[in-house]
């Protein structure tokens, strides 16, 4: 592990070491070889190539032009005018016009050739320039300098001579911005007798060399063309020409000179044979201090570049290292945050990182399995807890509903303590927290007590809600009608209109006329009531059942009348009593109910109901109460 760490450190430091070594080597190389000598050698190499190119191009270029011009002057229109043998001035003018038109057309064909002139042996001159014609048939009018004239006229037949540069005097005052400042004349004495003694001249301006030297132009050095008399005819670049004599004698190996501005230059020269010109190249050089400054500056620049490159490489490597490191760190953080899946790490060539990556992945997978188990258990617990809470909520709500339901039923006993004519007691024990059974009793008026007991189909909340509705309707109807059958019919109609849940209710309804003991009752599908008459036993009174309330509209109910005498008792109940089921599956039944009633038939209504309840409970034992258990008992004591 220690070795690995050392290797890592070395790798981190490697780019810096390379960079430092490179800079040191570079600096050593630069100073040891000598920057000045190097530049000179480079200049010499460049110069050799350039001279060759120019020397191979300049002369053919001029020769080509001369050949072309020789063809032009062979035209008869030129030769005839050169002879100047005319009978009249008009003939001379005609010949001049003819010669002018020919030369003007021809001259436009040549770029860099500025004019075509002809000088006779007497010094008279004629020819054409692009913007003017020269016809100086009087030798006195020849604007060329005497030296130039002598040079041209002194040529041997067939020999080409170079004269000039000549001034703009040729243009005789119609110079303009297009007139070249420097014109070189290539003249040769004709051997063709048809010319007479005439020298054709080709006028060249510097543009003939522009294309050639523009190729060689390097932005630093300048090129110069000197004629045989050391007159500069053409140059490129800035005009900082040192002494022409020194330049011309510089030679091909190069000579260090000082130019007109006091700057060091390296000059190279090459003599041409035809024409006898000299081609010079001048390369500016710096002085020693300048060289040192330049070396320092260049070294500084190179060192900076190297440093930047090394820094860039190092930075790239470090970036990659940090990316791998961050990848590992990220993996650990993700593992700490519980992300325990197999992780994709940055590929790494560092073995330590690879090992760490594998370890992280292995640990992560193991932890992931354990965490998965814990999460599953926690999920189950949470589900159970949720269910429990849901049930608690339901229970709490049902408990509240039961209280509400109980509150809706008369629950104060004795209910009418001032009415000694009756003893009334009722109870309702729902099978669930709320039930569908209900009872009610109330005085419709001073003499009529309405009694009712009902059992809504179904159980639980729906039954309880429907019970509440049915109870309200029954009660309202009973308070409006004294006719039992009409109460049931109206109640049935109302419930049928709004019975979306299609529930129904069995009802036993009776109205006891207190003053007479006459009980008018009707049964809408409910359990048979039990009566105890004349201090006998409770017996079921099998009245005529009508159809349940809410099941079908427009049902008619038949009421019946039972005359109750003082001491007679009425026991009404819901099916929860006879259908209370024991663990064995046996139902309590009406017989056991009657037995229970009769076992305490003389007791108060409260005791009777308690006794029945006890008997039922005893019979049912541990079995779950399946149905609501509702009972109501009335003892008619007669008018007091």
């Amino acid at each position: 592990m220690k070795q690995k760490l050392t290797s890592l450190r070395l790798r981190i430091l490697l780019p810096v070491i390379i960079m430092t070594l490179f800079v040191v080597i570079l600096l050593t190389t630069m100073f040891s070889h000598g920057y000045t000598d190097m530049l000179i050698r480079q200049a010499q190499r460049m110069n050799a190539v350039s001279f060759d190119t120019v020397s191979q191009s300049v002369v053919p270029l001029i020769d080509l032009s001369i050949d072309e011009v020789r063809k032009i002057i062979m035209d008869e229109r030129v030769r005839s005018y050169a002879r100047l043998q005319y009978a009249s001035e008009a003939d001379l003018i005609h010949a001049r016009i003819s010669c002018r038109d020919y030369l003007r057309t021809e001259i436009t064909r040549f770029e860099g050739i500025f004019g075509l002139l002809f000088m006779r042996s007497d010094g008279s001159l004629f020819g054409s320039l692009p913007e003017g014609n020269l016809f100086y048939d009087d030798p006195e009018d020849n604007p060329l300098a005497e030296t130039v004239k002598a040079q041209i006229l002194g040529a041997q037949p067939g020999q080409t001579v170079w004269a000039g540069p000549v001034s703009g005097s040729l243009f005789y005052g119609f110079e303009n911005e297009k007139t070249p400042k420097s014109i070189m004349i290539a003249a040769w004495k004709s051997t063709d007798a048809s010319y007479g003694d005439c020298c054709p001249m080709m006028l060249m301006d510097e543009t003939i060399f522009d294309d050639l030297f523009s190729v060689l132009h390097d932005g630093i050095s300048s090129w110069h063309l000197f004629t045989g008399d050391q007159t500069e005819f053409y140059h490129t670049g800035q005009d900082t020409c040192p002494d022409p004599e020194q330049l011309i004698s510089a030679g091909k190996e190069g000579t260090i000179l000082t130019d007109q501005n006091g700057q060091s230059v390296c000059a190279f020269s090459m003599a041409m044979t035809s024409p006898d010109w000299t081609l010079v190249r001048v390369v500016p050089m710096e002085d020693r201090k300048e060289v040192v400054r330049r070396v320092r500056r260049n070294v500084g620049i190179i060192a900076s570049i190297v440093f930047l490159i090394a820094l860039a490489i190092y930075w790239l490597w470090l970036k990659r290292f940090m990316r791998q490191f961050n990848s590992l760190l990220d993996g650990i953080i993700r593992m700490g945050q519980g992300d325990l899946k197999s992780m994709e790490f940055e590929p790494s060539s560092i073995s330590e990182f690879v090992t760490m990556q594998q370890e992280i992945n292995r640990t992560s997978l193991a932890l992931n399995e354990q965490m998965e188990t814990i999460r599953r258990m926690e999920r189950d617990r949470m589900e159970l807890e949720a269910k429990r809470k849901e049930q608690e909520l339901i229970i709490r709500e049902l408990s509240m509903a039961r209280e509400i339901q109980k509150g809706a039923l008369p629950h104060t006993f004795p209910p009418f303590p001032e009415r000694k004519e009756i003893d009334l007691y009722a109870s309702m024990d729902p099978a669930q927290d709320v039930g569908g059974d209900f009872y009610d009793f109330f005085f419709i008026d001073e003499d009529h007590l309405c009694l009712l007991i009902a059992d809504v189909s179904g159980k639980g909340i729906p039954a309880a809600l429907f019970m509440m509705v049915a109870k309200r309707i029954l009660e309202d109807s009973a308070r409006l009608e004294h006719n039992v059958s009409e109460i049931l019919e109206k109640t049935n109609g109302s419930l049928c209109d709004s019975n979306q849940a299609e529930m129904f209710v069995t009802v036993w309804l009776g109205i006891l006329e207190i003053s007479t003991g006459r009980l008018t009752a009707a049964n809408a599908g409910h359990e048979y009531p039990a009566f105890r008459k004349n201090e006998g036993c409770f017996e079921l009174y099998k009245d005529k059942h009508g159809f349940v309330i809410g099941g079908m509209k427009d049902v008619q109910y038949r009421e019946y009348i039972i005359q109750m005498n003082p001491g007679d008792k009425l026991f009404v109940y819901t099916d929860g009593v006879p259908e209370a089921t024991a663990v064995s599956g046996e139902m309590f039944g009406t017989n056991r109910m009657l037995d229970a009633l009769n076992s305490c038939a003389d007791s108060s209504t409260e005791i009777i109901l308690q006794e029945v309840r006890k008997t039922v409970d005893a019979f049912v034992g541990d079995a779950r109460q399946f149905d609501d258990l509702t009972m109501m008992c009335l003892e008619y004591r007669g008018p007091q």
Partner: protein
Amino acid sequence: MKKILLFICSALLIFSLRDPAAAEDQVVLTIGDVSDRTGNVYVDQLGMWQYLEDLLNVEISYVYLTQEEYASALTSHNLPDIVATYNNLSTILENGAALNVDPYLEEYVPNLLHGPAGSSYDVFRQLGNEGDGFYFFPARIGYNGVGYSNSAGNRGYAVRWDYYKELGYPPVNNEEDYLKVLRQMHENHPFTEDGYPTYLFGTENFSGYSTAFRAEVSLDYWAAYKYQNNIFTNEIFDGYTDPAHSMWWTSMAWFNRLYRAGKEDDSFDMDIFTQTSEQYEAKCARGQYLGLHNAKGSLYREESRKNPETLSGYGTIPSRGTNLYTNVYQLLGNGSLYMWFISANSPHKEEALRLFNYMCDPDFLREFLLGRKGVTWDYDADGVPRMTEYGQEQLNAYKEGSASEENYYVQWGGFGTLPSNWPLLRDNSLHPDGYPLDFATISREYTAATMTNNISRDICEHYGVELPSDAHYKAGGLDFRNDCGEAITSCMSSLNRDQLHILSKAEAILENVWVDLTLAETDEEWTAIRDKTIRELIELGEPEVFKAYQQQWDAAAAIIVPLVRQAQAANGVEPYTPEQYERFP
């Protein structure tokens, strides 16, 4: 209620049918001008053009086409909406490139038919063949020159004015007088102040036969071949074989006189046969020529830089022997030199037609040229159009060279900023109110007030007149008011190929003989050469060609001349009577 519902439904229907892109994209009307670029480079960005754009609800793009671009567009039928051209007219018609606007003029261009430009349409109706269409709108109809000028004129007996003044302004009424003056000047000044030799007379080249001073003969500028007309009677002359009425033969005689006069003292410039334009211009600028056939301004420009009071320059001597080029009614505008047509393929024909309607609408043009009414000009209580104080101030500053962006006319344009062929009516055309469209600068008062040339002022001072043109009239000189040559020539169809071939050969004969004529040593020699040349021309068949040309000319003149006379009457220019020009041969 029904009507309201109907209106709403109609409005919704129209709105829904409307092309939303068309509503957003403004029509760009392209104008291609084949002529040389003139006027303001950014003419279509000037206020005057933007005013026109607003009226037309278009954007105008004005471009100059090179000959290559024009030829390419013509061939590919991809021309701009409106094109100005001076050549290929027959090709344009053959290719169906131009729209026949005749059916649309009454509806879209009523100003052409019922205004001053209507004469061009009248010419078409009377000269055009049955069934031919009206394809080309003329450019700049109206008077070229209004009878007065602040320059000394450039045609006539032009001399170096400083040398002429030295001589005491001797009167010159014919060539004899002129030659005498020139020789005297040469005697006094054989060399210029800079040492250059002087010559009696200069001309650009020897084919410039307009140099002769035949006041009754029309200019060679628009004369076809050497058939020039009498500017008073509009008779056509055969300039090849009728030396008595030929400007060319008169020129030859004049140059022969010059040669013989200058032979002794080398005052005849032998270079005139061979010199180039540059050489000629250089000699003019140096003042080497004592007389010129066409007064040039280069010498005065050069000398006035050195000396603001200089009189070194060329001026034309007020004379009864030459004609002042003014009052030339150009019935067909610039004639065949420049024509406008609407491209047959243009998708914006209606806009183009409406543009031409504006371009000959005096009300619009008054504003187009001078700026908005109520801003730079307005009518006074007497109904006379006058510049407002603000307008005059801006105009003065503009004319004095103000380049301020704030200057009204820098923004608006006008006064030389339009391309040379706009609008269809000349600026000096009379508005129905009786004043020129450009009443601000076209007036004697303005012309006199802006006269800055020393030579012009010297002429006025010496001859006691307000303007140099007044001196010309005072000396008995006439102008070109009777001349219809340009309009007649514009209406004539070309000669046939054989006839043109004959005239080409005739030109070659004359070109070959001019040196001999000029350098003839005696009158006999000159006459012999002339007669021999005329015989050659007759043998060539030139007189038959002239007869054919004369027939066409007479037919056209019978229609054109009365129309020009009508225009003259409408503009209050009285034509010359035979008594006024009877002194001319």
